[in-house]
């Protein structure tokens, strides 16, 4: 009887362990993680990306709707192909990277959660902070849970991966980036696409 009870207790604990939320670190050793952005402009659209992405997300494969996290992008890691445009973009009249070194999204709530196999789609609501201005945003997100795949990406390290993809747009005027100005030269809307993978070592 005692043995059966112990076995049951161990199985319960093991089961709880499997279902426990995991914390995924999004600092990518492979340098793949990036946040792309696009603004329309008369001569050609301004396409750039940011590689300085980091943060943590707590994800429970048994309950993806309870996902919470905070993703940060280093403002100085934003790159566009033209050096003068980059200088202006990071300068005090636009993003003011020296004063506002990070762009942050912190999730609050997941809605319309649908899970099929390893993939979960949802609408995530959270606080987006850019140039010191915080706004609540809702964006579609796709989470792909890759169990035991960390070793395939980082040799000699066992664990799981979580891939997050999201496409959304913001208005620069909402974040005090030259509101109402230069709209004939640079669009107000900024399209953003996030493609990041986080690791949860075991």
């Amino acid at each position, binding site marked *: 009887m005692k043995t059966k009870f112990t076995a049951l207790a161990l199985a319960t604990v093991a089961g709880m362990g499997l279902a426990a939320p995991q914390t995924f670190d999004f600092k990518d050793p*492979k340098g793949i993680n990036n946040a792309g952005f696009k603004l329309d402009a008369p001569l050609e659209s301004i396409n750039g990306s940011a590689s300085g992405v980091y943060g943590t997300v707590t994800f429970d494969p048994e309950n993806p709707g309870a996902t919470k996290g905070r993703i940060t992008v280093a403002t100085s890691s934003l790159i566009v192909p033209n050096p003068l445009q980059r200088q202006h973009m990071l300068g005090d009249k636009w993003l003011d990277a020296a004063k506002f070194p990070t762009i942050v999204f912190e999730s609050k709530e997941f809605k319309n959660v649908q899970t099929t196999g390893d993939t979960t789609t949802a609408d995530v609501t959270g606080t987006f902070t850019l140039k010191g201005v915080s706004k609540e945003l809702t964006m579609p997100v796709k989470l792909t849970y890759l169990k035991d795949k960390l070793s395939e990406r980082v040799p000699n390290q066992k664990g799981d991966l979580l*891939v997050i993809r999201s496409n959304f747009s913001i208005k620069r005027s909402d974040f005090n980036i030259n509101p109402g100005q230069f709209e004939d030269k640079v669009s107000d809307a900024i399209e953003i696409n996030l493609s990041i993978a986080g690791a949860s070592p075991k």
Partner: protein
Amino acid sequence: MKRTLRMIALALVVGAFAFWTAAGANRGWTKTRVPKKIADAVTGLEGIQWQDKFVPGVDFLGAALLGAGVLTGVSLFVPAKSKGSKNQSKS
């Protein structure tokens, strides 16, 4: 001198246009970095790696045209070498 300045201006325009064409005739702004997509087979993500590369754009052509214009303009103020002075130096 006048003729030399105009020849340099012409060479500048022709050279800039040839370089712009050879570099892909980019009708956008000049780029000093170009994105290269890198795929991650495990996650299926596509990352972007920026490579240093000079790709002249329309502003490069504009700068060349401006330079040529300035040289041509300067040449207008350079006094032409008179035939008389040439003859005098020969005699």
